């Protein structure tokens, strides 16, 4: 038999060794504080990648903590819930953290301060659940991938392939983000329990928790929790060397197994299920305690924040309250980012609500932010190629996208780009490569939609043409028949002539004279 996964480590191409600033936010004692109740919560209806769910609450309705706001029947949906008890004051479009800066539908809720839980449906005997029930509960709890991709977890679990290993992704590789590291120290038992639930119900024979090399404390706490749960045979902690972007699903799989996830495929096709550690902890909460996903650990950090720290915060809280909790901004604050410095999303306001994807609020000082430099032409130095973890040719992609040559992108596998920003970071010509790739991907998507639409239009046009033609021939046939029928009988011919004559005669007669 082959050595179990994780015994030998492999590597992925490229990557960057980044300096870590996790210690900045990790000085605090555990457990991390919980943000006090906010007066108002703004909960965006769609916080995951996938279809928008249908709302099932109305304005003026009083809700308890944990009440579902949306139904979770759609295959790619993920429900949202009341973060506390209170009154729904409005359902309207509000600004949300999104690269477009557009408004989106949100449920606005006023807290009543009591923080009363709705009746929950705990299920401590999880062994009795079937896979379908597990997936339904995970969907109803609104759980999405908390590593940043926010893909609905239920959809991921519903894959049909046989899974031989569950990989718990604790290899948090972005320089500032520490929320998973904190979670693994603070609540390792939840992660272990979540892993046990998944392994038991989905019949997965083994699980490994991947953490990065310097996470010594996490290894200790996780090992202890595994011992306590008596899961030594099932779960193993594996340390992987620190290299950005190792926390990427594909990159982690490659490090652990040496196998490459096929382009356009999922780790599932290799018999692997990859879940972020925070997601698994949320699954344990949802199944054992019946608690939906209402909050997460958030890292608020950076040189632009007075007292960087991690905290537990509810979705819908204004980001400004998290910052205030950390003592506010330093005078040198220059940029506010949701997520990490390489893949994060620059925020234009701190009044935006915290969402499920918000693993980190990063306040960079003016010294951290490089000045915007003009873009120079590509010098074909190849730096971007050597760092790309997906093995792509960023400079070729960039040229093709710039000249709108979208048909050339397919053999270059643009879709495999994970937007890690490595190429962008090293490019000596300051070409905004990732932005080009995002633009290119979106254009490809749009082209596919347009193609679909035009095919539909052509089909409908052709159907209509056929229908019109059929009607025409039918009409012609009918006329023909009638004519033939008329021509066929001389009798009829004369009778018609007589009728016509009668009608004419009648017309000429003065009114009423026939009486």
């Amino acid at each position, binding site marked *: 038999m082959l050595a179990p996964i994780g015994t030998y480590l492999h590597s992925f191409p490229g990557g960057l060794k980044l300096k870590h600033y996790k210690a900045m936010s990790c000085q605090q004692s555990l457990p991390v504080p919980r943000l006090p109740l906010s007066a108002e919560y703004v909960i965006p209806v769609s916080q995951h990648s996938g279809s928008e769910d249908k709302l099932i609450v109305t304005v003026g309705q009083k809700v308890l903590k944990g009440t579902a706001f949306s139904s979770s029947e759609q295959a790619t949906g993920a429900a949202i819930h009341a973060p506390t008890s209170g009154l729904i004051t409005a359902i309207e479009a509000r600004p949300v953290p999104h690269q477009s800066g557009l408004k*989106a539908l949100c449920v606005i809720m006023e807290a009543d301060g009591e923080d009363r839980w709705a009746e929950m449906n705990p299920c401590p005997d999880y062994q009795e659940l079937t896979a379908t029930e597990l997936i339904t509960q995970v969907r109803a709890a609104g759980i999405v991938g908390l590593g940043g991709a926010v893909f609905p977890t239920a959809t991921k679990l519903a894959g049909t392939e046989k899974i031989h290993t569950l990989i718990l992704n604790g290899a948090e590789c972005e320089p500032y983000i520490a929320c998973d590291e904190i979670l693994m120290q603070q609540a390792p038992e939840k992660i272990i329990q979540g892993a046990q639930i998944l392994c038991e119900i989905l019949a997965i024979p083994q699980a490994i928790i991947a953490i990065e090399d310097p996470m010594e404390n996490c290894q200790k706490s996780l090992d202890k929790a595994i011992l306590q749960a008596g899961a030594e045979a099932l779960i193993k902690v594996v340390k992987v060397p620190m290299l950005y972007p190792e926390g990427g699903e594909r990159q982690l799989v490659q490090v652990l197994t040496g196998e490459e996830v096929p382009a356009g495929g999922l780790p599932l096709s290799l018999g692997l299920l990859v879940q972020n550690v925070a997601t698994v902890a949320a699954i344990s909460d949802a199944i054992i305690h019946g608690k939906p996903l209402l909050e997460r650990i958030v890292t608020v950090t950076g040189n632009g924040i007075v007292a960087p720290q991690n905290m537990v915060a509810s979705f819908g809280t204004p980001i400004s309250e998290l910052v205030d909790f950390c003592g506010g901004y330093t005078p040198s604050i220059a940029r506010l980012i949701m997520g990490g410095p390489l893949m994060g999303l620059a925020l234009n306001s701190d009044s935006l609500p915290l969402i499920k994807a918000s693993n980190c609020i990063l306040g960079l000082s003016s010294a951290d932010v490089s000045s915007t430099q003009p873009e*120079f032409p590509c010098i074909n130095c190849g730096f971007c190629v050597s760092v790309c973890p997906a093995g792509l040719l960023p400079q070729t992609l960039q040229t093709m996208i710039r000249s709108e040559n979208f048909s050339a992108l397919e053999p270059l596998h643009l879709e495999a780009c994970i937007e890690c920003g490595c190429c962008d970071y090293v490019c000596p010509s300051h070409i905004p490569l990732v932005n*080009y790739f995002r633009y290119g991907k979106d*254009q490809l998507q*749009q082209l596919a939609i347009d193609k679909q639409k035009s095919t539909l*239009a052509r089909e409908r046009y052709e159907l209509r043409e056929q229908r019109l033609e059929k009607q025409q021939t039918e009409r012609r046939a009918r006329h023909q028949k009638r004519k033939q029928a008329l021509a066929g009988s001389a009798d009829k011919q004369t009778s018609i002539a007589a009728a016509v004559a009668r009608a004419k005669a009648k017309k000429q007669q003065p009114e009423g004279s026939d009486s």
Partner: protein
Amino acid sequence: MSMAVISLTLLALAFGLALGYAAIRFRVQGNPIADEIEALLPQTQCGQCGYPGCRPYAEAIAAGTEQINRCPPGGDTGIKVLAELLGTEILALDEGAGVEKALPEVAIIHEDACIGCTKCIQACPVDAIVGAAKLMHTVITAECTGCELCIPPCPVDCIDMVVEKIDLQSWRWPKPAAIRNIPISVEVSDKVA
């Protein structure tokens, strides 16, 4: 000598037969060039090109009787791909046909004003309008191509074209600003003169 004549004649005969057979056996049905052209046209079926639909226009291009720059919905991008396919020059859009819309539009019927005359249904080339006589009509947005053919027949002018609303799903990343023409600032010294 006669050997050569006979063998060449035989060869010619054999090839002739083979070619003749192939011409019948592998005959291409329809008009493949028109098909390829049609696949590149937007299928809006608006008739702005002067033909009663995209297919007839594609056939006209294939026959060489029409320019490739008469389709406003396809716009400059459409002309570019057509030129690529046919190996011809890229032309500017013929303004006589119309102008390309900046953003895609769809028709909406103001349902309170609709008198249910069914004229728009008859005009719609893709059957994207539903409704019965004397009853209010409505446009199936997902199937509307934005051809505007339903607008003139409406006796009460209750159909409007609207730009489709952009939400988080339909929003697209913009193209990053292009490279400057002269990437380095050039200082001209007086000594040159």
